[in-house]
């Protein structure tokens, strides 16, 4: 703020002239120029032509446009300075002209942005109605008008605006005002997906190949606006996440703003045709305690979500499934459960491009007599995910625990050994009918798109043996695509698994 100090100093020096006037008003256009001063720069630094121009001003009528042009010429000849014109009315009706010159690098705000030498003509809010901002903040915004743009103050206001509207990112833009030397300041709001109180359900779209399990496909097509949307989903022989291989369609209606950003609702209706691998059917035949396989699965899942903070969400709903028997059609069973879920999701943006994200969740699904469920069960699943990124380096750690008691349907049973868990193992070898206990962890490092990982976990039945399995692998790894080779580390024989695919 040295320029400001310089300005104040000049004003102090000019005090005697100012004191001599009854009112501190600027001279009128056409007033005779009594003298011309150049402050902050030696006249010798200027070209002879410009020096002559300054000298000839004395005795001439005051012409502000001409004086502004001369200031611009001073800046043109001396590119590391800014020049402003100050007019002082003299008691005899004449005018004194002072060219105030300061070096850009002496002024922090000019170093930051050359436009801060201009006077703020107006401050506008775009992207949301003005009324959505508190009165006190609006007053502070309007207080910027008529002064040079104070970067610190504007940044503070930007921070306060973002604090008042946490679902938005605020950008500060400036543009030319209606007359020379004036600028308009615009605070532009745009909704930030990552900081919405309630995010939409993540897309499940993927096309994945697993050398032991073949192709799996899922395609979600979301349609709608920022608060409400409909997703049409299609599954193509998807065997990558459950014991069953399923194809079919689903439709989900979501709203993440029901009167308030903190309340959302969702309903999904899905109908899938199921096929089963031989190992799964053998395993089911060998263990009659596991509920039977089904030919089709019709599921309806309504839920409501409340977000007490932008990082925590609590969801409650029900999952109603009708499972048509594979062996005795058209007999069917109902697997109806109350679903409760808590999610925590927070990101931190640090210096040197460091980004961290922690996601944690706990889900409880429990069947209820009131829902007329034929299968009685309770299912717990807790998971934790941490991600650290710095420029091209990324570390991802995952941890999950789960347990089921009672007779859970097959789609609720846990599996490991696919394209995302215990990579290198085949789930149809580990637990072809899934398990009612699970522990899974993984650690992954990526440099750009090249990555290596170490997976560890176990899936087992409560009354069976728990075997801890390890695997490792490497390959091309990105958020939207992968091509990896993975190896079980504690298997009897070395079996390389190749996986590739896209997720989007």
């Amino acid at each position, binding site marked *: 703020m040295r320029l400001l100090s310089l300005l104040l100093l000049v004003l102090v020096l000019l005090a005697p002239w100012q004191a001599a006037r009854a009112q501190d008003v600027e001279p009128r256009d056409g007033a005779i120029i009594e003298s011309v001063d150049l402050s902050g720069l030696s006249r010798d630094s200027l070209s002879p032509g410009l020096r002559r121009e300054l000298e000839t001003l004395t005795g001439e009528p005051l012409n502000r446009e001409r004086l502004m042009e001369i200031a*611009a010429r001073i*800046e*043109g000849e001396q*590119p*590391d300075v*800014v020049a402003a014109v100050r007019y002082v009315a003299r008691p005899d009706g004449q005018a004194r002209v002072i060219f105030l010159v300061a*070096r*850009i*690098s002496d002024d922090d705000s*000019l*170093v*930051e*942005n*050359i*436009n801060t030498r*201009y006077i703020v003509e107006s401050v506008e809010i775009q992207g949301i109605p003005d009324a959505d901002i508190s009165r006190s903040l609006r007053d502070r915004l309007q207080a910027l008008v008529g002064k040079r743009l104070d970067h610190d103050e504007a940044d503070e206001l930007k921070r306060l605006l973002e604090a008042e509207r946490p679902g938005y*990112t605020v*950008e*500060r*833009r*400036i*543009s*030319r005002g209606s007359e*020379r*030397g004036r*600028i308009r300041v615009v605070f532009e709001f745009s909704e930030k*997906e*990552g900081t919405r109180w309630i*995010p*939409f359900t*993540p*897309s499940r*779209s993927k096309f994945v190949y697993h050398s032991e399990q073949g192709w799996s496909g899922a395609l*979600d*097509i*979301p349609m709608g606006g920022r608060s409400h949307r409909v997703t049409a989903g299609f599954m193509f022989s998807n065997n990558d996440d459950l014991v069953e291989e399923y194809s079919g369609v689903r439709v989900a209606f979501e709203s993440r703003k029901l009167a308030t950003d903190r309340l959302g609702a969702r309903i999904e209706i899905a109908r899938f045709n199921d096929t089963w691998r031989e190992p799964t059917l053998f395993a089911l035949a060998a263990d009659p305690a596991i509920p039977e396989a089904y030919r089709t699965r019709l599921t309806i899942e309504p839920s409501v979500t409340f977000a007490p903070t932008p990082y925590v969400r609590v969801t409650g709903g029900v999952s109603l499934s009708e499972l048509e028997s594979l062996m005795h059609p058209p007999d069917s069973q109902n697997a109806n459960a109350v679903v409760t879920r808590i999610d925590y999701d927070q*990101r931190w*943006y*640090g210096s040197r*491009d460091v*980004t961290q*994200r922690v996601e944690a969740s706990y889900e409880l699904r429990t069947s209820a007599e009131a829902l007329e469920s034929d299968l009685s069960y309770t299912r717990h699943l807790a998971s934790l995910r941490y*991600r650290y*990124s710095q420029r091209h380096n*990324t570390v991802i750690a995952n941890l999950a625990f789960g347990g089921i008691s009672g007779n859970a349907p097959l789609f609720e049973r846990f599996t490991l050994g696919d394209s995302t868990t215990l990579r290198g193992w085949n789930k149809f070898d580990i637990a072809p009918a899934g398990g009612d206990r699970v522990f899974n962890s993984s650690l992954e490092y990526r440099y750009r798109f090249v990555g290596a990982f170490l997976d560890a976990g176990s899936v087992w039945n409560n009354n069976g043996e728990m075997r801890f399995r390890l695997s490792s692998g490497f390959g091309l790894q990105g*958020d*939207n695509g992968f091509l990896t080779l993975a190896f079980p580390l504690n298997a009897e024989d070395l079996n390389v698994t190749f996986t590739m695919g896209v*997720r*989007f």
Partner: protein
Amino acid sequence: MIPAGRRGWSLVRPWSLALVVTLIAMTSPVDAQTLTVRAVADALHVRASGLGFISGPVLDRLQDGRSVRVDFDLIVLEKPNGAVVSRAQQSFNLSFDLWEQRFAVTRIGPMPRSISHLTARAAEDWCLDNVTVPVASLGRTGRDTPFWVRVEYRIPERSANAPAEDSTFTLHTLIDVLSRRREDENKAKSVEAGPFRLGN
């Protein structure tokens, strides 16, 4: 007998091929990313044509009245991708004077220097001219043995706009990501050239 059309095609084809090859050679990206070095007052200065970073989204941002920081890295190498002989890093702050329609640049650091009223090209050149390596730091390299020079610039992503490393991609966000490619290309670039000798 050869049909007239066929004979005409066989006569024209070598010329067409030569023309196409020439056009491809003229328009290929060999273009413009060339480096020249010179020693001025015990400092090694570099000039790079075609480094142009004031374009696309960076230019849009500047013309919106916002400022842009650019980090430069000047590296002297023993050989292509070889050991680092000397290195200089310097950051600059750019802004665009909305009323003068010219660029202003400030060298950030303990001894800031600023300049204004520059065209985009002149602003880029001024930045690069203010990233220098002391000739003394090169030792014998340059006089007895040739050296290579790499110039890198990077425009740091603002935290607020950092892409969410999210697994929640939809078709819409995928399109967004794909269309952002050109923008990313603008945010960092590296040019390497050589061999140079100080006498050059």
